[in-house]
């Protein structure tokens, strides 16, 4: 133990600015959002605060009775539960390919796979709108060449969410791929050597060495993917505007519409908090299944 000296006071000066900003522009708003969700803050209160009333759990009750909320929840879960695992699976496949000892030019392929991650979501979503065009789009043309009838990707309620999932997988898989490659590099080579001496084939090595050793990284990757996927917004906003017939309406898109299009800020705050609770619950559930590097 060292004695307290003048430098220790310096600590407060160093953390001060960042802490102040995070407190004022993040912590305070989050707490205020909870309070907001118990009021009827709407366009009238926005004009004159005298119109503001405390309404208890009325916003939450309204939420339970709002069919569009359940549609948005179902769509978001669809995106998270189908899109998330698909994205992680593609990331894992790409990471395993890149990690293969026979591959040269690893840096080149890594860069290529990572490029979609850094691109601007809005810009590439606009591009995918045209790629998905049922008549002129490249994707349906490719399907036509192998004998599949054109699909109206963004116009058909059954295909709109798969289309968004496909696009999101393309956009995101490179990110998790990099983290998984790092995890694979951390597996000691002698474990594989020992497995080979014991006569394990490629699949057995993957199943018995790679997978168990990679589990902490995988849990981490699944967790951050899930948290990100719950916040689905820009893709449906740009590509489908939530349609057709609400097939791609997400929770955050619903919150945006209620809050910033109709100015029902109280109701929107309730939606935001339900999303927060769902993410928190799902995270705690995940953490029970495995230790992550964050712990």
């Amino acid at each position: 133990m060292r004695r307290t000296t003048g430098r220790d006071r310096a600590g407060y000066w160093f953390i001060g600015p960042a802490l102040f900003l995070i407190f004022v522009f993040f912590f305070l708003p989050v707490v205020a959002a909870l309070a907001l969700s118990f009021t009827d803050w709407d366009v009238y209160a926005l004009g004159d605060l005298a119109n503001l009333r405390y309404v208890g759990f009325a916003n939450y009750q309204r939420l339970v009775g709002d069919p569009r909320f359940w549609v948005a929840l179902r769509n978001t879960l669809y995106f998270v539960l189908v899109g998330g695992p698909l994205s992680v699976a593609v990331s894992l496949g790409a990471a395993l390919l890149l990690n293969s000892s026979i591959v040269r030019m690893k840096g080149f392929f890594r860069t290529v796979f990572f490029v979609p991650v850094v691109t601007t979501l809005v810009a590439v979503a606009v591009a995918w709108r045209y790629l998905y065009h049922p008549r002129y789009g490249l994707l349906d043309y490719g399907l036509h060449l192998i004998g599949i009838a054109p699909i109206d990707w963004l116009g058909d309620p059954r295909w709109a969410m798969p289309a968004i999932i496909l696009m999101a997988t393309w956009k995101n898989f490179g990110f998790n791929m990099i983290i998984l490659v790092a995890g694979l590099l951390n597996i000691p080579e002698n474990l594989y050597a020992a497995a080979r001496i014991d006569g394990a084939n490629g699949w057995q090595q993957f199943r018995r060495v790679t997978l168990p050793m990679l589990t902490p990284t995988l849990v981490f990757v699944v967790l951050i993917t899930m948290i990100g996927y719950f916040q689905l917004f820009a893709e449906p906003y740009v590509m489908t505007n939530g349609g057709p017939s609400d097939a791609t309406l997400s929770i955050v898109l619903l919150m945006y519409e209620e809050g910033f299009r109709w100015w029902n800020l109280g109701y929107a705050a309730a939606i935001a908090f339900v999303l927060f609770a769902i993410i928190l619950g799902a995270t705690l559930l995940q953490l029970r299944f495995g230790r992550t590097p964050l712990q």
Partner: protein
Amino acid sequence: MRRLFTIVVVYALLGVAAMITMLPLLWMLAASLMATGEATVYPPHITPDTVSTAHYTELFTRLHLGRYLINSTVVAVAVTFTALVFNSMAGYAFAKLRFAGRDRTFRVLLSAMLVPAQASMLPLFLLVKSLGLLNTYWGVMVPGLASVFGIFLIRQYALSIPDSLLDAARIDGASELRIYWSLVLPLCRPVLVTLAIFTFMGTWNDFMWPLIVLADADMHTLPVALATLLGEHAQDTELMMAGSVLTVLPVLLVFLALQRHYIAGLMGGGVKG
């Protein structure tokens, strides 16, 4: 023989995956250079018949894309610099300076990473509005000026600075500010570059918050401008693709120039804890 077969399969898979990954972006570029209407023909063209830069010209003359480019650049550069200063100060302090409540404060900060940004957006909008910052650069910038993730990243790196080095500087009579500026910052260079790229890209690509605070078209950042443009010009495929290319290009160039730092930071930050 068996080995040759494996090599062929692995490279074929990688090649196909690389092609699928690049195709949407290459098509975006090709379509942006096509004459009006060429991107909506059947069968689709992969390359333009004749290269036309008319859409780029139109974006910069009639549609004020230059203005949005400036807005995006100002916001992203300003946020990056401020975030670097504030996050590095705090990250260093949490790693190396000792003061009461340090570790407890840090744990509370970390818990904030679980809260989705959307939970703060509605009151933040009201706050920004009451401060008179709607439709201003400041309004877009405030949520990014300091970040928990940034502080975390710097702290993890600063932990590896030897205490003896800092103590030696103190014995030589250097002030705490001097130590931070002349010793800690140069030592943290690699992680600062990583954080700079993360912050720049995150701010440049951000959509929801700028969409909320920037109602005035003159203040739009590129992603917001692009979404607005889509509302009026959805049929002008070639024009929209030119706008998309211009939006993506700056971040892509930053990434390609500095990717070594970016990927190294991602590989280190994601696994260490």
